[in-house]
Structure formats: C-alpha cells, structure tokens
C-alpha cells in the first residue's frame, strides 16, 4: 500500500497570477528519485476531510531540486489553498513519485520529440523536455504550447532560456486562444485541423519519433487523431490527462440517519450505471454484492476476497459491517467507500452507489 512521506516546502514562486511552483525537500536531507514526467500525490485535511491531489513534477532530473507546478482551479479546494495559504517551511505529505508519462532516454540516440501542452499541462512536459535536452545531446524537441493569452503562459521565461541554452534543439510554437498573433495559425484552439496545418509547414511530422500530450480532454483527442492520421502509432504517443479532470471540491460526509436495530431484513437501494434498484436483503448470510447480483444488478467484482477492490462502492446512507479490507485505504473508508463483497448490512435502510 502506498505510503506518504513528509516534504518540507523550501521555496514558492509565482509563475503567473494564479499558479505557483513549489520546491520540496525531504526532512532527512535525502533526495527523492523520480522519472521525468511523473507526478506527486499530496494529502491534506480540509474541515476534517482528507483530500488527495496529484500534481506533476516540473523539474528536470538534473535540476537538483524537486518542484511541482500548481495552477489554481476555480473552486478547487487544494489548488486554492496551495496558491493562497501555503508557506515556505510548511510540511506537505506526498506519496512517492508515480506515473508512466515518459520514454526511456539513451544518450547516443538522435530523436525528434514533439510535445503538446495545454495550460498547466506544461508541468510534466517541461520536466521531460529539460531532461531530454540534457541527457540526449543529439535529440531535438518541438513544443506546441497552448494558452489563453500571453499573461497566462506558465514558465514563459524559463522556456526562452532553455531555447538559448540548447541552441537549435528546442523549437517552441505558442498557440494563444484569445491574443492575436502575427501568424493566424498560431491563434485559437489546438484542434485536429490546426495540427494538420502545423504538420504541413511548421513541424516535420515524418521525423517525429515520440509525441507527448498533456492538456484538457478535447485538445488531447484532436491532437491524438491528427498524430495517428499522420502515421504515428499508439505506441508512439504518450498521454497524460491533466488534473482538471479530478473532482476538486471537498465532499460532504454521508449522513448516518438510521441506527442499527433488531430487524433481520434491510431495505437496500443500489445504484449502478445510473439506475437504482430497491430490494430487501437479510442482514446475515449474504454479502451486499451477492444480494445486488441476485437482484439482477450487474455489479462489478473479481476476487470476492476483499483484495482487488473491483467491487468498490459508496455507502450514501445507512451502515454496513465490512469483514475484510485489504484494498481500501483509511481515507477512502472515511469517505464511505466499501468493498461490497465483504459487506453485511447493520442498519434497516441502506443506500449504496457504484457510480460514485
């Protein structure tokens, strides 16, 4: 099971108005090993409820520091806190770096990489780009970087510096949604059509070995389609869907409105794939999962031993006893998640949702 380690905040820099770059270091003077393009998952309590959020490492492997970029998301509890209240000297709890948004580097190779980043999607791409330019001296990198406007470009100056350090090996195309530019093609959204036009005159797509895409969903779809249409295989395209897809707000706790009683039967309501079904089930002898399946719900499961977590669902109302749990972490259980293969009702009424 994943473990959290304390990391001290050693520096906080604002890169643009609503984004910070946070430098972190372990307390014991060691360093954290990571691979370019990986992310850190943090946990923090807000009003007693633990939230977990992942942010990509933006530092390169040779920067000698561990940094993540955190852009404030409208209504996002963690990102707002990190931008407004986090201070140098604070301790953050983080899991070891994770993620597969990278390809192996080889100092002898001469490859052409193409990166696409949308907004704060630049963070892992910056880590990849810096590391690649430093460790594969014959390779080149083309970055297509999409932003709303000039003043929302994260790491703008740092990218310019990198261009100068690695002369002729880093090419950057800024696409701005609302600011007009000299070249029409560089204004608007990065769509499939826009990519196709970029591949005509601005990017030699035939020479590209590997593409990295990190941004919001529609942008990723359009770019991936264009790349495939221009001959890249799925194995040549690396994706990282960025953090906006994560639920951002602290959730309200499920309320326990019914206490246990002596009744032997529970009124259960189970939601799966948007459909709710109510049925009566005994409090003993049959797990919640078995009862759901018996009542024609195609509930998910695999091991039936409390190990794999396939049958995870959320208890919205009522109380259950979970006999075994080898898969859910404490914070998930605190939020009401259960392994339905291991659950037996305690309360007379039970509302459970597989869709949350």
């Amino acid at each position, binding site marked *: 099971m994943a473990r959290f380690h304390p990391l001290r905040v050693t520096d906080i820099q604002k890169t643009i108005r609503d984004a910070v770059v946070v430098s972190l270091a372990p307390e014991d003077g060691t360093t954290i090993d990571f691979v370019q393009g990986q992310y850190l998952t943090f946990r923090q309590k807000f009003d007693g409820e633990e939230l977990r959020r992942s942010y990509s490492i933006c530092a390169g492997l040779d920067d000698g520091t561990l940094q993540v970029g955190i852009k404030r998301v409208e209504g996002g509890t963690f990102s707002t806190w990190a931008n407004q209240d986090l201070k140098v000297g604070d301790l953050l709890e983080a899991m070891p770096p994770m993620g597969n948004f990278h390809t192996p580097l080889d100092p002898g190779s001469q490859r052409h990489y193409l990166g696409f980043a949308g907004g704060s999607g630049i963070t892992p791409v910056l880590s990849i780009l810096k590391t690649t330019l430093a460790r594969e001296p014959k390779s080149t990198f083309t970055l297509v970087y999409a932003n709303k406007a000039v003043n929302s470009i994260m790491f703008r100056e740092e990218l310019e510096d990198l261009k100068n350090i690695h002369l002729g090996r880093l090419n950057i195309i800024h696409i701005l949604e609302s600011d007009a530019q000299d070249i029409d093609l560089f204004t608007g959204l990065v769509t499939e059509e826009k990519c196709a036009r970029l591949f005509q005159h601005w990017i030699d797509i035939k020479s590209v070995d590997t593409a990295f895409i990190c941004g919001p969903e529609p942008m990723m779809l359009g770019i991936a389609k264009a790349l495939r249409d221009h001959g890249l295989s799925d194995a040549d395209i690396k994706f990282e*869907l960025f953090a906006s897809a994560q639920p951002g707000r602290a959730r309200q706790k499920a309320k326990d409105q019914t206490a246990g009683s002596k009744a032997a039967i529970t009124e259960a309501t189970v939601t799966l794939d948007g459909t709710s079904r109510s049925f009566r089930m005994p409090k003993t002898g049959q797990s919640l999962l078995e009862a759901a399946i018996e009542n024609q719900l195609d509930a998910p499961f695999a091991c039936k031993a409390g190990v794999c977590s396939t049958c995870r669902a959320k208890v919205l109302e009522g109380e259950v006893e979970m006999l075994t749990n080898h898969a859910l972490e404490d914070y998930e259980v605190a939020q009401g998640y259960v392994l339905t293969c291991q659950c037996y009702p305690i309360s007379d009424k039970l509302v459970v949702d597989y869709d949350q």
Partner: protein
Amino acid sequence: MSEEMKIEDYLAKGGVLSSPENAPPRYRAELLRLMASFVDSELAGAAGFADAINYGPGIKERIAAAKIVLEKTDNADKVLKIMGDFGANTTRYVNHHPWTARLDRDADIGAERIDGDMRLSVFNYPLAGWNDAVVMNLLMGRAVMLQLKEHCKLSYQPLAEAFRAILPVETNHADLAAEGIKRLMETGSDPAELQASVAYWWPRVDASFGADKSKRFQSLKKFGLRHLGNAELRKSWQTATRAELQVLGLDIK
C-alpha cells in the same frame, strides 16, 4: 483549450487515461475486472502448465514448458502491478486462490466462471498429458493473441503498454505449441490422440470468447476498453486456427 468535457465523453471519443486518479468509478471497476480476468487466467494457466514440464518427452520440450510457466507468471505480474496502482493488495492477491485447482475433465461449465476467481472458463479444465497440453496451448494461445491485440488498443495507457509487451511473449508460446505438434506428428505420435485433444479443447476455447451478443460489450466499448465484438474475434480465431491445424495435419470435425 479550456472547454469542459466529461471523462465519459472523452473516453467514448477514443480518449486515453494514464493514471488511476482520472478513472471514473464504473470505468475503474470494469478495468479492474478485465485485469483480474487476465491475471487469474495467466496464474491458473501457468499453474496448470507447471505439471506439463514433467510430461515433456525430451529436454527441449521441458525447457519450452518451463519457459512458458515462467513467462506466463511474469505476464501476470506485469498486469497485477497495475491493479496495485488502483489499490489492489498484490501480495495477498497471488495467494487468495488455489490456482492449480481444476474441475473434472468432463465437467461442462460453458463460459461460466467459477466462484472465487475470474479465470476464463477454459482454464478450469485439467490437462491430460503432454500431447493434450501442447494442443491446448496452441488453440488457447491463438485465442489469447487475438484478445491481446484487442487489449493493446484499450484506453488505459499503462495497461495497453503492458499488453504490448506481453503480446510477443504469448505469441511465442503459441508458436512453440505449433512447433511441438509438428514434432509430435513427425516422431510418430498417434494422430488420433492429438485429434481427440483438438476435439476436446476446440469448443472450450471457443466458449472463452463469450456470447456473440453481450450487453457488457457495449459499456466496455464506450469506455474504450473493447473495440471488436466477441463474434468478430471468435470468427478470426476459428478461421486462422482451423487453417493452421490443417497444415499440421489435424482438423475440426
């Protein structure tokens, strides 16, 4: 670049996910189910094939069988690691079920899974000696190749990458089986015995493709976890494997 799109729509349009954090609950469940099915099948397949090492008529055959057992276990490990990213307890998982357990050879369970594990139904039947093991390995190996080719396109990138690494290994296992049958035919094995094994395993492997019309397929397709239907995959397997058997001097009645 900032317009909102639901993850479900993104997946339905061919989008790719790369970390557990982005997986919606129902997607997560179906993905875990798919991974459990693969891991259980590989563990059960390897456990069953371990006995075949001792049936091997020569040193080359024993090496081939041992290699298959090792590599199938390794393939299970690759996918189990990804289940671990989603919270599965990988240490306990390996020991939560007796993977060597088999039903009687004449049990008839169709495509049913047996309580407690998600292995494909075909892995619940016991092998009856070396020749039988080689035939099963060829027929199932070719089916696994088609299923893996399908899995290489699925929308969870770390898993698709694992399957891309696994596909050539499993292909080699089926090729070893084809070579094994060829050698058996050349060294005077009774073709009728091999033919009987083909007749035994053919419908059981066929059943592992699932029902032609599957409700689950539609939801898996929306999640980008499946692309080709069961019927289509089954047809490709039947055509290619029948032709291969004929070249080897065997047939389907």
